[in-house]
């Protein structure tokens, strides 16, 4: 469970489960969220764009290596 402990400038200070505290950029938190609110954080890997970037970066890098 993620709970907003407080807001400090550009950060939301979030408590996770057994009182682990971390900063979350405030722009990732819905505008109406308040101190004490339980928030849902869901993170997904974007496989499509990752694949595209992998190809692009490999190409950029391979152009630079001489061996």
């Amino acid at each position: 469970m993620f709970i907003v402990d407080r807001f400090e400038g550009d950060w939301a200070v979030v408590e996770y489960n057994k009182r682990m505290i971390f900063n979350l950029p405030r722009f990732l938190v819905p505008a109406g969220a308040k101190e004490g609110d339980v928030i849902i954080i869901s993170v997904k890997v974007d496989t499509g764009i990752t694949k595209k970037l992998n190809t692009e970066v490999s190409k950029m890098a391979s152009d630079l290596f001489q061996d």
Partner: protein
Amino acid sequence: MRRFILLLLAVLFLVGCSNPLTQKVNTKDKPASPAVSQSQTENLKVHFLDVGQGDSILVQFPNGKNMLVDAGANESASTIINYLNSNGIKKLDYLVGTHPHEDHIGSLDAVINHFEIGEVLMPKATTNTKTFRDVLAAIKNKRLRATTAKAGVSVISDGNLSVDILGPCGDTYESLNNYSAVIKIKYGDVAFLLTGDAEALSEQEILAAGADVRAQVLKVGHHGSESSTSAEFLKAVNSEYAVISVGAGNDYHHPHQVTLNKLRKAGIKVLRTDQIGTIVFSTDGRNIYR
């Protein structure tokens, strides 16, 4: 029109905020009888513990009693407990959680579990974090009850020693910071003002209530954030020292430059826990030593 609105606001504040001198909640602290009163040579000591980004303040009264105001973040439990132990503290006669943010109450449950506790004072404000729920559970498990920290509460009134709560004046705020218990400790001619994270709104309410905020030592509100230490409040407190309890290289850029500039312009000596560690003041009621 603007002037009228300001006047109206001032009147509302005056009505809404109880006079700090009219309410005496605590009856346990009757003046000590001569037989048990401590030697007058005893000093009042105020320790601003270095707990990184957070607050924790130990007050040792001349009558032998102790008060802890806030207990740092979750990770500060051993720092605080070791510090209290090394100062021979067995009992905290008064334990204050200024407001329920993790950087102020994080280790309050550990402190409650480790020491004998007298009276617990907290504002009537709650939050849903496990950190806060654990504090409530610790209070309950020790069969303690809390007293509401709000303007007008007299914690100690014992001859030339007094501890009064000047804020919060209101009972509904958007920011938990403004529920912060603002505490004035006075011994003889020397006063300390501990402001928790009270922001400009609460500062203005305290001034509007006519409270005597003057103090030689000001614990700067909200770790030196620009949200606090409004110009009028700073002027009214008129302190000689400003203590900023703050962690080195914190993510929030505390203390903010705006606040430091205000303090510098006012010619106030700034002492920061991130620069010099734990800060201890001692006073005989006339002079301040550190």
